[in-house]
């Protein structure tokens, strides 16, 4: 309950903050359009040369792009900016102010900075998903919809926990602000089904940086290729990884000594 209320407060703060800079909405609209354009152009070139990529049709790949944009929108709206601020706070020693607040610090640092305009990406993602479903033509059954929803929630949880673990490393390594940027470039790999990558990279994108679980698996759920072992695996990871992130956070926070404050 407290978590939800905190989230609501920070969301309102984020909205009020962003309403001061309304041109940022225009910038965000351009950015989202450019991002979508990149994905669609890439798709266009590839499907001008073939009609299936590793067994995925163009409509199915569109579903991947939808999930990709949606998950990116969610993480870039809340998780990434908050964690970036957290890492900056560790570097400057200003994390002290957060730690003295009477709420769980991990929750607080995970939602403190909300970039409201990224909501555009969330909407674009949903629209693209809708178009993909129409193009697929098949009716989405309850089982498929449920599988998709479960896989999506699991995927977002996995990505959050993964980023949290990365950010927690800031307690030991000070200049890690670009570690979140690198996630960005690895995330690009999720625009394509991970089956196309060579085995070593596929393994890395599944277990090392769990992009496969966050994007390919939910998309599989939607187009009806999701097998129950994969879904169970995703759910299992979505339970284990947050716990790991929690333990690591606890361990890290003991290490924090308040750099220069």
């Amino acid at each position, binding site marked *: 309950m407290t978590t939800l209320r905190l989230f609501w407060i920070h969301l309102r703060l984020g909205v009020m903050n962003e309403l001061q800079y309304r*041109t*940022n909405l*225009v*910038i965000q609209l*351009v*950015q989202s359009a*450019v*991002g979508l*354009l*990149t994905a669609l*152009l*890439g798709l266009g*070139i*590839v499907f*001008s*040369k*073939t009609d*299936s*990529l*590793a067994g995925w049709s163009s409509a199915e790949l569109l579903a991947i792009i939808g999930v990709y944009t949606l998950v990116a929108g969610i993480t870039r709206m809340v998780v990434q900016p908050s964690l970036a601020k957290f890492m900056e706070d560790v570097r400057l020693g200003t994390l002290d102010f957060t730690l003295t607040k009477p709420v769980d610090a991990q929750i607080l640092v995970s939602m403190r900075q909300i970039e409201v305009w990224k909501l555009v990406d969330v909407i674009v993602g949903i629209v693209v998903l809708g178009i993909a479903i129409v193009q697929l033509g098949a009716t989405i059954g309850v089982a498929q919809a449920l599988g998709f929803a479960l896989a999506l929630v699991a995927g977002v949880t996995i990505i959050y926990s993964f980023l949290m673990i990365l950010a927690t490393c800031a307690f030991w*390594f000070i*200049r*890690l602000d*670009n*570690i979140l*940027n*690198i996630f960005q*470039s*690895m995330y*690009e*790999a999720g*625009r*394509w089904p991970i089956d*196309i*990558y*060579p085995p*070593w*990279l596929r393994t890395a994108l599944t277990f090392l940086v769990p992009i496969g679980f966050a994007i390919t698996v939910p998309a599989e759920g939607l187009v009806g290729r999701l097998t129950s072992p994969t879904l169970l695996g995703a759910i299992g990871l979505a339970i284990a990884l947050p716990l790991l992130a929690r333990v690591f956070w606890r361990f890290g926070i003991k290490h924090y000594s308040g750099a220069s404050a």
Partner: protein
Amino acid sequence: MIDLLVLYRAQFKTTIAEQFQYRGALVIWLIGLILEPVIYLSVWSTVAQSQGGAVDGFTAADFAAYYLVALVVSQATFTWIMWEMEYWIRQGSLSPLLVRPVHPIHRHIANNLTFKLLTMAILVPVVLVLSIVFQPNFTLSAWTALAFIPALALAMALRFALEWTLASLAFWVTRVTAINQLYFVIFLFLSGFAAPLDLLPGPVRTLAEWLPFYRMLGFPVELLLGRLSPTQALLGFGAQLAWLGIALLLLNVTWAKGVRQYSAVGA
């Protein structure tokens, strides 16, 4: 001239010292660098395989060769000036650079060259390992290897001049992220990075050949791999030189105007 040499040497030393201080950042940079070409390489290899081994004459091994060279070329030519300049202008940290008796571009060139030299030492073994993994089809000849050197140098100069010019737009627009992003998408598709030019639809391909982006990446790559005829190579050098001339002219004009526009925001 001597002064400039002294400046470059000093800048060289500081950059090396800075880079060694943050070795972790180097590793992070490396992952990002490798991943992008590997993504497109994987996509196109998959397409080649599904089309019975080759698309438009490119086999999976040809794509591997193309993207491994593209990795080296893009590492050699990339700049980060568009972010840095925005920061300089927005935070006002350009001011101390402006009062120095040399053009700030020298500092950046020196920084850039040092970073490239340093990272090439890491890149060479990485490319060797990737060669074992992807089994590229390299057919090198003496003339293409020789011609590659000036082509790469011109590509570096051209990309540097063009991106410096674009970066100076930050004098007029304080938040340039959207412009940068648009530039990167255009670059991605028209430079030959998302797909070799041969795979693009006819009109787009012609457009790409006329615009400067292909000359900054795809042209040196295809030259080295022997995919270009001597005439195409000569035409390419001509295009590189012509675009470099235009880019340098634009750079001088925008910089001169921009500095007058500069009001040291935030300083």
